[in-house]
């Protein structure tokens, strides 16, 4: 089956497949993003872009562990002024390019969105777990999330997605705040706070001391968050966290995800998007399903 069988409409964007490159992964340059569209991603999300150039945290910034990956990049980016060109190069890939943006307050998000015109959508990063003054610091406050989302929606006509942190007591509360602010979709989840210590020396390994866990270890956390958000919200939920196979994508969709983002799994295979797409396609065909049949299926099984 061809991948066109998986085409979806997501917040008004046309995607040929429901697989999206997650923020922060191979998204520093336009050429790199374009390369991932060539690998079959239905859309790509850029590295998170801010208002000023940022070097990020000192190395080590990423570790592969037995259960997943621990990273603390620290939002390195050249600022929206120097990223505009990369965004236009990425757009040559022919799939929607979603600009991930981060800020400390609504005005900063607005400034970046205005300065980064040309994105197919904006993904508001209110969930990075390890950057001082940004990300989770704002993303755990429902009032601020609502204000930021509303400000972003007033600024642009293209869709606004809000990427949520699992590092909260109740992710639904934050998802509802984003929805009240007018978000077109929520993206769940960002990484889960974690840490690794070198037993030879006693030093925390990451340059930032702690970071965010991604990969297989967080998939059950992500599935639960997506399940809860799907149940509570009327807007699409985009699932992300530990997806590395078509089976993982199916599970995430059954929890309620309209589309999935893939991040860490590119470590093992940059061709992961095409693999997920063909596996998903074959699965749907074998079970005589369409995508809508499996999105949220787990809810219909237990709450018919």
């Amino acid at each position, binding site marked *: 089956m061809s991948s066109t069988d998986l085409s979806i409409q997501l917040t008004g964007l046309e995607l040929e497949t429901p697989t999206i490159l997650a923020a922060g992964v191979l998204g520093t340059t336009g050429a790199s993003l*374009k*390369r991932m569209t060539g690998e079959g991603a239905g859309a790509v999300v850029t590295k998170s872009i801010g208002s000023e*150039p940022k070097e990020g945290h*000192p190395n080590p*910034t990423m570790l592969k562990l037995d259960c997943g990956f621990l*990273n603390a*990049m620290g939002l390195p980016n050249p600022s929206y002024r120097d990223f505009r060109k990369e965004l236009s190069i990425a757009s040559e890939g022919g799939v929607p390019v979603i600009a991930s943006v981060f800020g400390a307050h609504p005005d900063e998000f607005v400034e970046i969105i205005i300065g980064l015109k040309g994105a197919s959508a904006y993904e508001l990063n209110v969930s990075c777990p390890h950057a001082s003054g940004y990300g989770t610091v704002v993303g755990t406050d429902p009032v601020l999330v609502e204000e930021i989302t509303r400000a972003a929606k007033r600024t642009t006509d293209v869709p606004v997605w809000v990427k949520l942190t699992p590092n909260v007591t109740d992710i639904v509360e934050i998802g509802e705040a984003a929805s009240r602010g007018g978000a077109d979709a929520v993206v769940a989840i960002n990484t889960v706070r974690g840490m690794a210590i070198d037993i030879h020396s006693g030093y925390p390994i990451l340059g930032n001391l702690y970071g965010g866990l991604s990969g297989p270890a967080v998939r059950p956390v992500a599935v639960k968050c997506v399940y809860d958000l799907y149940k509570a919200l009327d807007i699409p939920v985009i699932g992300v966290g530990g997806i590395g196979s078509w089976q993982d994508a199916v599970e995430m969709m059954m929890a309620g995800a309209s589309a999935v983002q893939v991040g860490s799994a590119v470590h093992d295979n940059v061709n992961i998007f095409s693999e997920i797409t063909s596996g998903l396609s074959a699965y749907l065909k074998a079970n005589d399903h369409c995508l809508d049949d499996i999105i949220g299926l787990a809810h219909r099984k237990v709450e018919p």
Partner: protein
Amino acid sequence: MRPVNVIITEIIRETPTIITLRTDIEPDAAPGQFVMVWVRGLDEIPMALSHPGSITVQSVGKATEALSRLEVGDSIGIRGPFGNGFEVKEKGDREEKEGDGEEDGAGKGNKIMIIAGGVGGAPLLPLALQAHSRDLDVTTLIGARTADELLFEEHFLKCGAISIATDDGSKGHHGFITGAMELFNLAGFDQFYICGPELMMKSVLDILRAAGLEAMAQLSLHRYFKCGIGVCGACTIDPSGLRVCRDGPVLSGDLLIKSELGKYHRDATGKKIMF
């Protein structure tokens, strides 16, 4: 992988500015692969392996300065080996491949030229040793600012012929390494292996291109690495989007001739920095 704890067992003064740190662990690495070297509490940087258990360091920044101050018995963390390596073609490949009708240079390898600029000689020494042990005809061009700074001259000499260029003329050809290349019939070589300052590599590659030999060159590229394992994208090059840490650091000349090589690189923020 978590960093492996390695103990410095020997410190060799190679030149006034370059030292080799030998360690107690020898990872199984191909020539040209690198390790991420963690100076605890400070930084982690990519370093070429100059021998399975050695890194060769020139002090150019905070992390390399810290490495240069280490003493025997001190320890550092090592992750790797990472990346691809140089491809060493076996003697005899040429005849077989020609028999297959392939004439694009792939598979040749009887006579190789190694072009090493400054500390760029570090990943090239294991290659020279391996090629020599496989009975390939090795010629090494070594370039440095002065005679004192020539790296691994004796080691390369044991692998075959060498030719020297120094910026100040204190030994060998007076001038850049590209001048030393003029002494050779480049078309007589089957593979070229290059590592050194980027503008040097660009000049060398331009000469090879002019001779139609760029597809036979393998270059080890230096870029700013963050994750080092091919996920973050900080080291990707234009216009291919290839990751230097994972798809490289060794990349072919015909790919690099069409790339950002010698034009710009990117800093830690991802901003382009022109050469």
